[in-house]
């Protein structure tokens, strides 16, 4: 084994991929993975989906089995890193130990955005980010019959669907005027609004939370319109904040995430960042991006591994995302920010399958596909290739998608 050491901080999606890609790209030195959660990297998306409602254990969610790390000679250390010393090239652990690195990769992820209202300390009030949160939610669920979810983003809506499946009464509160406002077109929001109401969710829009009330255990939620809702379980899902403090304290550039170049490198050539905590320059969108999805974490990790091993693999894959609620499988390709036109294929106002395509300057930039995996895969390909499929043909469910891949014009061609 080589004598150099890569230290990875955070046992995460990005770091699991990093271990794979480093070995594949020829890193023969040490790999030390340090994480403050007790487990090896696990899949986070199921936490609000199958895991919340189910009986699976965290071991079932491991991204790679423990044998993989053994075989690839990756050492895992359960500890929190409290400091980086760039001069000494060391990281300090919470027990005081200092460990040297040659290359350091920060896969610190993000944490729930805190809600600063009275009553957040009450029993029965939870955020939803990691396995420990789920264990606590499952405990609170025993005997609970009424849940309030604060925030109608993907995580809030997924949690609502999972709890409905368990027979819990669910109220979802959202300050914005529509669900998923930050991420989707009005037609898609209206679709999810309808389905959640059809499934029995009490959805309240344009309303905020003033306080959580109860003795030790939460019993009710006070709203900005002065209404009260009884609750024995509250889940707060109002977005996340990137974990940047470690980098910031070490003097690295931070601006909505740890600032990295197209290879995941910070302004220190030996320090990299990947995943939710990293803000990278993206050539496709010609701007800086900080994304919160698995595909982004995986792509970052591949680029960082390449950079560490002297291979040029700039961040380039198209971001994509998915969300499961009830019998709905939503798959999203690309980023819809900056769109000027949407095209619908299928009818979101009836039934449970359709696709919403986002165009900017005539070019397809993103698609939300509900129970339409084929439309999703079509979009992944068409967006990656920079195609501008004919909009009226795309809107016609009778048009075979394959024909649109051939007939589409690319703006440069």
């Amino acid at each position, binding site marked *: 084994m080589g004598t150099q050491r890569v230290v990875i901080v955070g046992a995460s999606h990005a770091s699991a991929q990093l271990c794979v890609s480093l070995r594949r790209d020829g890193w023969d030195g040490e790999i030390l993975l340090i994480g403050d959660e007790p487990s090896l990297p696990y899949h986070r*998306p*199921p936490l609000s989906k199958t895991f919340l409602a189910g009986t699976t254990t965290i071991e079932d969610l491991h991204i*790679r089995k423990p044998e993989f790390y053994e075989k690839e000679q990756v050492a895992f250390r359960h500890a929190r890193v409290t400091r980086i010393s760039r001069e000494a090239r060391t990281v300090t652990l919470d027990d005081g130990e200092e460990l040297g690195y040659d290359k350091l990769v920060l896969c610190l992820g993000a944490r729930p955005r805190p809600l600063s209202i009275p009553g957040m300390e009450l029993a029965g009030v939870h955020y939803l980010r990691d396995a420990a949160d789920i264990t606590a939610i499952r405990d609170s669920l025993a005997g609970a019959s009424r849940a309030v979810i604060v925030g109608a983003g993907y995580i809030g809506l997924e949690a609502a669907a999972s709890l409905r499946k368990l027979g819990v009464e669910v109220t979802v509160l959202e300050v914005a005027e529509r669900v998923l406002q930050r991420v989707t077109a009005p037609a898609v929001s209206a679709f999810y609004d309808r389905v959640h109401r059809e499934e029995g969710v009490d959805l309240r829009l344009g309303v905020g939370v003033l306080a959580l009330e109860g003795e030790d255990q939460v019993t009710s939620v006070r709203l900005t319109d002065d209404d009260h809702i009884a609750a024995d379980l509250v889940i707060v899902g109002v977005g996340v904040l990137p974990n940047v403090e470690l980098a910031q304290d070490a003097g690295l550039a931070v601006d909505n995430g740890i600032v990295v170049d197209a290879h995941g490198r910070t302004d220190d050539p030996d320090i990299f960042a990947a995943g939710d905590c990293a803000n990278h320059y993206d050539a496709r969108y010609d701007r800086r991006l900080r994304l919160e999805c698995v595909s982004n974490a995986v792509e970052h990790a591949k680029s960082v591994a390449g950079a560490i091993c002297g291979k040029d693999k700039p961040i380039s894959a198209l971001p994509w995302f*998915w969300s499961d609620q009830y019998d709905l499988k939503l798959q999203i390709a690309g980023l819809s920010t900056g769109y000027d036109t949407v095209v619908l294929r299928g009818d979101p106002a009836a039934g449970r399958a359709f696709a919403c395509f986002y165009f900017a300057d005539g070019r397809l930039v993103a698609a939300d596909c509900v129970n339409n*995996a*084929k439309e999703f*895969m*079509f979009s992944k*390909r068409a967006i990656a290739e920079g195609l501008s499929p004919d909009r009226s043909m795309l809107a016609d469910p009778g048009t075979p998608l394959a024909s649109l891949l051939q007939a589409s014009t690319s703006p440069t061609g």
Partner: protein
Amino acid sequence: MGTITFVEHDGTSHDVDLVDGESLMELATSNGVPGIDGDCGGEAACGTCHVIVDDAWIATTGTRSDEETQMIEMSPECAPNSRLSCQLKARSELDGLRVHLPEFQM
């Protein structure tokens, strides 16, 4: 026990131990087979676990489901025996199975 062989697009082959009940995607990722990422963890949501089953084996593995077809059909490398390896569970009858990897996952 048994063996499943993954053949990369350039012909490099990887023999992995068959573990009853695990999906081929899990076997590939646990054993570091390049070219199978399994980003969604086996939810049939990402399409990064596409494999093409050797002709001799397709009767034993069975052909793909509609859900898999939807995911794979748009790949330029879609073949009649294409499957999502996360939807293909290893079992003792599959000892000796060979699957081929496409050049690119989508």
